[in-house]
C-alpha cells in the first residue's frame, strides 16, 4: 500500500523523467527549454520531500528563474541557426544510446553494492528552522565552510566578467560580419 509521500514521489519521478526525456529528444529548442523547466521543478519537489526546503527554493530561484530564462533568451537570439526540420542528432547517436545505457547499468550495479540501500530516513534531530540556521552559520563560519563559500562567489564573479568579455561585440567580430 502506497503512502501519500510515496505517491507524490512517484508522480514527481514520472514527470521529471518524462520531461528530461523530452529535453533531449525535442526538436524545437524553445520546447526543450520549457521541458527543462519542468524537469528542474520535479527535482525541486524531491528536495522538498528530502526536508531540504531551502535548497528547493534555491533550485527555483537559480535554475528555473535565472538559468532557464538565460537559455530561453539565447534560444531566441540564435533562432535562425538550426531549424526544426534540421537533423537534431549527430551520426554517432547510437553510440550515445549505448553510453547512456552502460552508464545507467553501471550506476545501478554499483549502487546495489552500497550498504543501507533500503534504509529508512532517520528522524531529523532539528526542526527546519534550525537546519536552515545551521547551514547558514556553517557557510560563514571561519572554521568550517567559509573558504568554499568565498571561492564559489569569486567563481561567480569571474564567470560574470568572463561571459561579458566573451559575448562583447568587439570591433573584430563586427569587421568579420561586414566581410561576410
Amino acid at each position, binding site marked *: 500500500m502506497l503512502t501519500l509521500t510515496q505517491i507524490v514521489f512517484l508522480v514527481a519521478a514520472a514527470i521529471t523523467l518524462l520531461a528530461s526525456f523530452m529535453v533531449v529528444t525535442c526538436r524545437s529548442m524553445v520546447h526543450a527549454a520549457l521541458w527543462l523547466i519542468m524537469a528542474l521543478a520535479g527535482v525541486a519537489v524531491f528536495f522538498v520531500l528530502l526536508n531540504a526546503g531551502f535548497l528547493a527554493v534555491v533550485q527555483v530561484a537559480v535554475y528555473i528563474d535565472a538559468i532557464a530564462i538565460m537559455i530561453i533568451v539565447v534560444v531566441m537570439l540564435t533562432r535562425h541557426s*538550426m531549424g526544426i526540420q534540421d537533423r537534431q542528432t549527430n551520426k554517432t547517436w547510437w553510440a550515445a544510446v549505448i553510453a547512456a545505457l552502460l552508464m545507467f547499468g553501471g550506476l545501478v550495479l554499483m549502487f546495489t553494492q552500497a550498504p543501507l540501500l533500503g534504509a529508512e530516513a532517520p528522524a531529523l534531530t532539528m526542526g527546519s528552522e534550525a537546519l536552515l540556521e545551521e547551514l547558514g552559520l556553517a557557510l560563514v563560519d571561519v572554521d568550517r565552510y567559509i573558504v568554499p563559500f568565498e571561492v564559489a562567489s569569486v567563481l561567480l564573479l569571474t564567470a560574470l566578467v568572463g561571459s561579458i568579455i566573451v559575448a562583447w561585440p568587439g570591433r573584430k567580430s563586427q569587421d568579420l560580419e561586414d566581410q561576410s
Partner: protein
Amino acid sequence: MIPLSWYILVSAALFSIGIYGALARRNALAILMAIELMLNAVNLNLVAFWRYLTPNVVAGKVFVLVVFAVAASEVAVGLALIISIYRRRHTIAVEEIDMMKW
C-alpha cells in the same frame, strides 16, 4: 517512507538521459541543457545521501550550494560562448564549430 534506492534510481536515470543528450545532440544549446540535467541528478543524489546517511553533517548541503554556483557560472560562460560563436560563424551546430580540430 520512501527507500533511498528510489532516489538513487531516479537520479541514475536522470544522469543517463543527460549523458545521451550531451553526446547525441547537434545543437550546442541542447548540450548545455543536457549538462544541466546531469548536474541536477548529482544534486539529487547528494541531498538524498545527506538525508538518509548523514543528516547531522551539513557538508552535503554545502556541496549542493557550491554545485549551484558552478552550474550558474558554467551556463553563463557557455551561453556567452554560444552567442560569440553564433555572431562570428552563424551556426551553433557543434560539428560545424571545428576550428580547433586537426
